[in-house]
């Protein structure tokens, strides 16, 4: 409608979710929105996931499913063919993460160009330190000493890379601090971040032993040759049941598929469109049990890696260059400068082994209690009562419409969150296929 009041929207965080949201806002707003993305990194779109420059770091999802727009699945591949006409490009290819970061930067630039002259989309190179309520909206106080008035603010701060409060080592993944090539390195965790850190060390020509320690010692599994998800309908799925009942149903489904000559991946991929509803309908007891007992198994099946990366990791294990230990770190004596003496209690035997004077990289994963996280904005919002953690303490409490819930349990009409911060409500919200849908729904809800 012409003459409709222009809305001002601030997006805190310019990684994948912030950029994808900005693009959707510009698409649906018809020039009635002025959006600012607050991101300290001058290279917008990189975030933690796509900052790496190493070609070995590739997407864990095939390019055909990584478009920023659900309704335009070939958007990324068209961009890629245009940008790198000389590259051989097979559909299903796992792009380099730096290429995807470049894609996101171009998505942002295109959205900003389309909006120039009407509403507008800008990148403010700063960090948001706090958000306060003022008459008629919000005031975002920025690290550069200025502040920004906005009617709506959306938190898109992603994963918390800060040191885990129990361990004190900054999270590592694709970005690894310099380590002497001959030192023994212990990586805490054996999931996707461990693989990233290991690839980085490999690329630097690390010669010392690399030991990965995790409770179950499970490596991420590889993608199959072809993606062939089973067709499911919500009428089939036992929503709202306890975890043991659900797991039995799910294992039977996998057994049936495999007995019919199919692959377990077909079932994991077939259920994915329903993961958010499964999570939402589980009683809180089932969610708790899932997080403590089933998640490690789920993660290695759900968060898979490119087959050639998987093969390389297995080769390194066979050659003794990478050692995988199933156990729990029972003692850490910090020696400073990211080194420590560790004691690991082995899962099967219960024996304790000492790992003396090793360099430590924390790749234990991305699920954190936001109240004790390293992001001062999030903790200040919780302290001020404008936000609270979800009952499982794995994210912020948000409604299904992404509105942040305050300490009294009331959803805000100005403050929203997207992406991994909303994990408590959505759970399956780490990857682009879900994030782009969430962004589209929120954009339409706010300005459509």
């Amino acid at each position, binding site marked *: 409608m012409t003459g409709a009041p222009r809305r001002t929207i601030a997006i805190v965080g310019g990684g994948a979710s912030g950029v994808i949201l900005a693009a959707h806002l510009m698409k649906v707003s018809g020039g009635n929105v002025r959006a600012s993305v607050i991101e300290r990194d001058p290279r917008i779109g990189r975030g933690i996931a796509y900052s790496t420059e190493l070609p070995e770091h590739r997407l864990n999802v095939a390019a055909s499913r990584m478009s920023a727009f659900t309704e335009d699945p070939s958007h990324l591949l068209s961009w890629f063919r245009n940008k790198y006409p000389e590259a051989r490009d097979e559909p299903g290819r796992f792009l380099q993460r730096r290429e995807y970061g470049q894609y996101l930067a171009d998505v942002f630039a295109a959205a900003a160009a389309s909006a120039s002259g009407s509403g507008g989309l800008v990148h403010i190179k700063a960090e948001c330190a706090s958000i306060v309520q003022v008459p008629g909206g919000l005031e975002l106080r920025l690290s550069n000493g200025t502040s920004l008035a906005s009617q709506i603010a959306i938190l898109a701060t992603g994963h918390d890379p800060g040191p885990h409060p129990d361990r004190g080592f900054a999270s590592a993944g694709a970005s690894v601090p310099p380590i002497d090539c001959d030192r023994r390195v212990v990586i805490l965790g054996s999931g996707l971040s461990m693989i990233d850190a290991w690839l980085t060390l490999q690329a630097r020509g690390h010669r010392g032993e690399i030991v990965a320690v995790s409770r179950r010692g499970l490596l991420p599994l590889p993608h199959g040759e072809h993606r062939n998800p*089973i067709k499911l*309908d919500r*009428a*089939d799925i*036992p*929503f*709202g*049941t*306890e975890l043991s009942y659900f797991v039995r149903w799910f294992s039977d*489904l996998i057994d049936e598929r495999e007995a019919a000559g199919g692959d377990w991946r077909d079932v994991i991929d077939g259920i994915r469109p329903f993961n958010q509803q499964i999570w939402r309908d589980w009683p809180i007891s089932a969610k708790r049990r899932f997080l403590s007992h089933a998640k490690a198994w789920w993660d290695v099946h759900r968060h898979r890696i490119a087959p050639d990366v998987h093969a390389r990791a297995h080769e390194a294990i066979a050659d003794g260059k990478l050692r995988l230990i199933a156990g729990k770190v029972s003692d850490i004596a910090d020696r400073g400068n990211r080194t420590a003496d560790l004691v690991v209690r082995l899962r099967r035997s219960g024996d304790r082994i000492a790992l003396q004077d090793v360099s430590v990289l924390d790749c234990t994963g991305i699920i954190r209690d936001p109240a004790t996280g390293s992001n001062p904005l999030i903790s200040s919002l919780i302290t001020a009562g404008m936000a609270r953690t979800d009952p499982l303490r794995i994210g912020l409490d948000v409604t299904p419409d992404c509105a942040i819930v305050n300490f009294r349990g009331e959803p805000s009409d100005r403050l929203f969150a997207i992406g991994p911060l909303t994990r408590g409500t959505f759970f399956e919200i780490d990857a682009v296929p879900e994030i782009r849908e969430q962004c589209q729904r929120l954009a339409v809800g706010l300005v459509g």
Partner: protein
Amino acid sequence: MLTKKGKYGLKALVHLSRLPAGQLAFVGDIARANNIPKKFLDAILAELRNAGFVQSRKGKEGGYRLARSPSEIKVGHIVRVLDGPLAPIPCASRTRYEPCDDCDEATCQVRHMMLEVRHAIAEVLDNRSLAEMRDTTNDDLDLPQLQQA
């Protein structure tokens, strides 16, 4: 179609949802009050316990109670546990799919419509909680009037 098992299970849960929170009921009492064969009800309640909808206690002071608030339990979730996928006809289920031996699915207009019915069943049953089912006015005549209003 809702089987007798599904119907009895829903009746038993409505019965339990009328009790003060935490209070247990004997299977015999639930069976008598709702006109359900007791042995059948034993089996039904055992399935509902496995799925996490009810809890049981053994012994003299024993019995069944709801495992969580009736406003958190959706009717569709109960029916799936007792009767399997919400499908009006076996060929309209994906996981418990059975083809009919007397028709060709590709040209079967009946199946096509039943897929739509499946969707409508889920729409209704997944949006009604056990508490809502318990509190609905028990009068068929009200239904068309409600829809017109």
